[in-house]
Structure formats: structure tokens, C-alpha cells
């Protein structure tokens, strides 16, 4: 029997970007943050605490290689910067301990807090980070320092991976599932899938497919239950405005719209890709660490 070719609906687009208007050679401190997540890896270069360039790639099977690839792609995009030109590199994310060239590692919780403060401004108090396998509700002060946080632990449901599984199951690209689910929102929203467990939920979704439900309704039911879980976590730390969302799922309106409506709070608009928050925070810490070492 020949192998069956599978489309990969879970794949989301990779990007590498540089701010052409800036000249890195004029910068006093060049810092770099690398966020090696379970699903994605980002490398961010900052010049004196301002975003200059980044890469956002999928994490491969080797963490060292993935972090190198992330850094290499951003340096290539810049063109003439070398690794030695960077003053300080901070690693964060799930694979932070295996980034060979990081001078220090800091948890993604601290980095997302700090990053959100940069991306959304000092008024942010509550950060929701929705990533590949973790869901975090983080409370920060006006400097972006973590005051309190909670992470999902009982269940991996409602995470990026869970959404990828469902995208695959329904054969819809991950970048479209959110929008599609909003077709029936809010007036024709079906009951949430009864369980938040992705393993169990999967069989429920299969059941809905079999019953002939249209995809948008299935997605709506699924995202509704994801949103419920997210809100539960948020309310447990206590949501205080201003409220911001970071991480990959922030690009998924199927979740973000529902979460905001359920909370009755609007999330702040990001200045740029919130999936970068962790790496941005790491780079900012890198700058601080560099300056501290100079003192």
C-alpha cells in the first residue's frame, strides 16, 4: 500500500523581519532574546531596548539547532551583523536550557510579562499568554515585573497544540479556523463541546462531524470551550485592566474574541506581533543584564 500524503493544516507561516530604517552600528547596546517554545522559536534583536529585527520559526526536533536557525535567519536578514556583535543573549521558553549560546536563561513567564509591558505599554496589568502547550495568566506591575501567575496544569486542553489537532481533524488551515468559527458568532453559537479535554474532545468532535455539523459550528463549539477554560484561569488570578494577550494564539480571533466578550474587557491592540513577546522580554532583560555587568 502506498503511503498517504497528508496535508499539514496545523502549519502556520514563518516570518523574518528587519527594520531597515535603523542602523545597528549606531546602537550602544545590542541585545538578543531567544524564545525556544515547544511549537515556535523566535529570535529578537533589540538596539538600546528598541525592536530591530526578528525571526519567527517553527521549532524543529533539535533545540540547539532550532535556536541556531532562529538566530542565523535573523542575522542573515540583517546582513552584516555577526553573533559576536551582540552584547548579551538571553534564552527563554521551554527549551531555554538547551540554547548553547545564551548567557543567561529567564523563564517565559517573566519574559512575557516584560515583553507585554514593552509591546502594550506600562498600563498592562494582566497578560494572557497562550502558546503551544501552556496557558498562562500573568499579573504584572507597571515595570512589567511579575506579581503573580497561574499556569494550566491539570489539562493541556485549550492550548495551541489542541487547536492544531482540531485544525488537522477538520482539514482547515490553522490561520483560518478562528475566523471561520466567528461566522456563527455570537447569535448562532452552539453549546460548547462538553469536555475541555482535547483527547476526549476529539472523539466528541468526530461525533459532530459524523452528525454532519458544518465546520464553522464545530469550531465555534470547540473555541467556546477553549475560551471558557481560558477565562477560568484568568479569573483565578483576577483580571485587572489593562489586559493584553500574547503568544501564538493571540492571532486566533476564534479564541480572543470570545475571551474578551466573556470577560467583558477589551484587550489592548498590539504594536506588533505578540507572538514575539517572550523573545522581546528576553532581549530587554539582556540589555539590563549587560548594563548591570558594565556597572
Amino acid at each position, binding site marked *: 500500500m502506498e503511503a498517504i500524503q497528508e496535508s499539514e493544516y496545523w502549519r502556520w507561516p514563518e516570518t523574518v523581519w528587519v527594520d531597515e530604517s535603523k542602523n545597528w552600528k549606531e546602537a550602544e547596546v545590542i541585545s538578543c532574546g531567544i524564545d525556544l517554545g515547544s511549537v515556535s522559536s523566535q529570535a529578537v534583536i533589540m538596539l538600546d531596548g528598541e525592536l530591530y529585527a526578528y525571526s519567527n520559526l517553527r521549532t524543529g526536533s533539535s533545540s540547539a539547532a532550532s535556536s541556531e536557525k532562529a538566530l542565523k535567519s535573523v542575522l542573515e536578514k540583517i546582513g552584516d551583523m555577526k553573533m559576536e556583535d551582540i552584547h548579551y543573549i538571553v534564552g527563554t521558553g*521551554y527549551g531555554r536550557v538547551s540554547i548553547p549560546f545564551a548567557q543567561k*536563561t*529567564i*523563564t*517565559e*513567564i*517573566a519574559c512575557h510579562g516584560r515583553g507585554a509591558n514593552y509591546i502594550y505599554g506600562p498600563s498592562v496589568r494582566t497578560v494572557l499568554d497562550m502558546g503551544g502547550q*501552556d496557558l498562562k495568566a500573568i499579573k504584572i506591575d507597571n*515595570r*512589567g*515585573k*511579575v*506579581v*503573580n*501567575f497561574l*499556569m494550566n*496544569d*491539570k489539562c493541556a486542553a485549550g492550548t495551541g497544540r489542541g487547536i492544531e489537532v482540531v485544525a488537522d481533524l477538520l482539514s482547515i488551515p490553522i490561520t483560518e479556523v478562528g475566523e471561520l468559527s466567528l461566522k456563527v458568532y455570537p447569535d448562532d453559537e452552539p453549546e460548547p463541546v462538553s469536555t475541555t479535554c482535547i483527547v476526549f474532545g476529539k472523539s466528541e468532535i468526530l461525533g459532530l462531524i459524523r452528525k454532519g455539523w458544518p465546520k464553522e459550528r464545530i469550531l465555534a463549539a470547540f473555541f467556546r470551550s477553549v475560551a471558557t477554560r481560558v477565562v477560568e484561569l484568568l479569573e483565578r488570578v483576577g483580571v485587572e485592566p489593562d489586559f493584553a494577550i500574547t503568544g501564538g494564539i493571540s492571532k486566533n480571533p476564534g479564541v480572543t474574541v470570545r475571551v474578551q466578550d466573556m470577560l467583558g474587557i477589551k484587550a489592548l491592540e498590539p504594536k506588533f506581533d505578540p507572538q514575539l513577546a517572550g523573545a522581546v522580554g528576553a532581549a530587554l*532583560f539582556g540589555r*539590563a*543584564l549587560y548594563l*548591570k555587568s558594565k556597572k
Partner: protein
Amino acid sequence: MGKDVEKLPQIKQFREWFEKRHDYAKDWKKKNGGRVVGYYCTYCPEEILYAAGVLPVRILGSHEPESITRPYLHDMYCPFCHDTLAQGLQGRYDYLDGVTLAQSCLHMRQAYFSFADRVPNIEWSYYMPFPHGVNNPYAGEYTKAEFEKFKASVEEWTGTTITNKELDEAIEVYNKNRELMMKVFELRKAENPPITGLHAMEMVVSSQMVDKREHNEVLESFLEDLKDVEPNRETGTRLMLIGSEDDDRSFLEMIEYGINYPATFVYEENCTGARYFWDLVRPEEDRLMALAKRYVYRVPCPAKDWAVGKLFRRRFNHIESVIKEYNVQGAIIAQMKFCDPHELDIPSLRKLFDQHDVKHLTLELDITQPIGQFRTRVEAFLEAMAEEDLFF
């Protein structure tokens, strides 16, 4: 030059007992020709067994993944119970002659019954009703009556008569053990405690595995040697561990030795820590009544700690005093997945910590620990209490 605690022979001894618990019990049997009884739950009146020349050993898990318990124990029962039963089913406890349980949570009961039925060679098994209402004035008498029956059953099984003298001796040995361990704990109040939580855990768990007389000897010299110990690690954040059974070395090791930020446990308020040995037997003419009172009025397990008449939890008072005396800065609530008794206290416990300005982190334990996930949480937890200088 002070001594390095890691190099103390007593630390090595505790660790060896901890790791080779089954070998110890088998050797003990060979040497003494006596019987070994496994017990579930810290409410078992070990003194009665000990007085009859029996070696009581605590039944604990091994923290290896398994699936052999699934035909007998439902998935929603706590991982500790699955783990202990798995040990039995895999033959690791085949040397036990008996097994007993002082009535405790439902999970443990089910594990106990399956263990007693399915582990070969067990000739004596005893389920001892024990009050859940330990905050109730009549619990002592009821317990005493149950201890009498327990004693009679042990006597019948071993063919001995347990005299008051033997009981007194057993009580003395056990009290001594408690006293010595409390003294060790006392030292942890210091600004730089001489031992870590890992050491403490190995000390307390090993005391549940070996003959207390032997353990006492080691404890005595340990206390002597500890005087000269010079702490050579940064104490960092002073942590308290709260929870049920937790004897997973990798977990404590990760927190105390494996994180970017220094931290040390100064107290373990759990079933394999202080809750096991805290509080002494106060001698009185009626020996069994004296024992009953110790077990009933010791710091209670959450399964038994609830209101009678007015609202209070005795355990919470104890936790409050630990916070003050040990200068606790952070608490790690390490709770077994599906453990109802503990889960039922957690929302109120969190409030208690907030009131005392103690930061807290809740982790859910399983048979084996997802150390990577835990590390991130613990690191972020400690990070939030430190790193002020990165924000300017």
C-alpha cells in the same frame, strides 16, 4: 573549618535506607526472624506493632510509570494509591507478612484492600476504623477502643501478649524518634539551615522504613555532627512544602538544587514529613488511651480536619505558627492529582498564605513528575520574588 553536610555519614545512611528499603526489611527479617507489616497512612499506631516485635514499614510508591493497577483502581483515584498498589502487584513487597490501614481517605482504602487481597504471602491484614472526626471530643475514647481490638488481633496473630512494659518501651523509642527529628527541624529555623528539604525528607522517610532504635542512634550522632556543619549553599528563598505523600527525590532535588535561583525548604507539612512525627505521646496510666490521644490530637490530616460547631481547621493554626517560627517566605503546595481531602483545603489555604504575605505556588503531583514543566513554574515563582535589579 565546619563540616560539609553532604559528607556526613548519617546523610549517607538515611539515603541508603531510603533507597534500599526493601533490602533493609528483608535483612531485618533474616536477622531477627520477626515479622514485617506494611502500613498505609500515618494514623497507624505503630507502637503496638513494635511492642509485639513486629517491624512496621510504610508502604510508599516508586515513581515509575505503570499501568498494572488499572484493572483494579479507577483512574480517578490518586496517583499515590496507584503507585503503592503497583509496587505490591510487581512483587516488591513480597516480604510483608501483614498489612494494615488506619482508616483514612477512600483512595487509600481501596488501594489497601486491593493490596491486601492481591499481594502474595500476606497472612494478616487489618482494617482499623479510625475516627474522621479528630476535632471531636469523643474521638479519643472511640480510638482507644479500636486500638484495643487492634492490639488483640496483633497478639493473636503473633501469638504474643503485649505487656504494659513492652508498650512503654515502644512508646519511648517512638517518642525519642519524634523528639530527635523535631530537634533537627528546630535547627532549620536558623538563618542558614544546615540541611535541605531533601535531607529532611530522606531522614523522615527512612525513619518509617527501619527499626526506630537504629534510626535513633543515627539521629543522635547526626544532631551532634550538625552542630559543626557550616552551611555551604545559599539558602535563598525559604520555602515550606505543603501536601500529602511526597517522597519523590527528583522533585525536591529540582527545586533545591536545579534552579537558577536559590531556595531551601525549611519545613515539610506533609504525610511523609512533619505530619508523620510531630507531637509526642504523653504518658498516662492507660497506655492505649495515651496512644489514642497522640494520634487523635496530633496535627491532623486534611481528610479529618473540619469544623465541629464553629469554624476552624486545626491544621491551619499549625501552618500559621510554622510560617512565623520558620520565617517562611514561599509555600509550594504539592498536591496529589485527584486528592479530594487536600483539594478541599486549597482555596482556603491560599487565602491564609495571602493573609500572611507568603507567596504560594500549587503543583499537581502525579506518579512521575513532569520535571520540565515544574521547573518553569518554580523558577518563575522564585524569579518573581527576586530579580528586582533587572527593572529600571
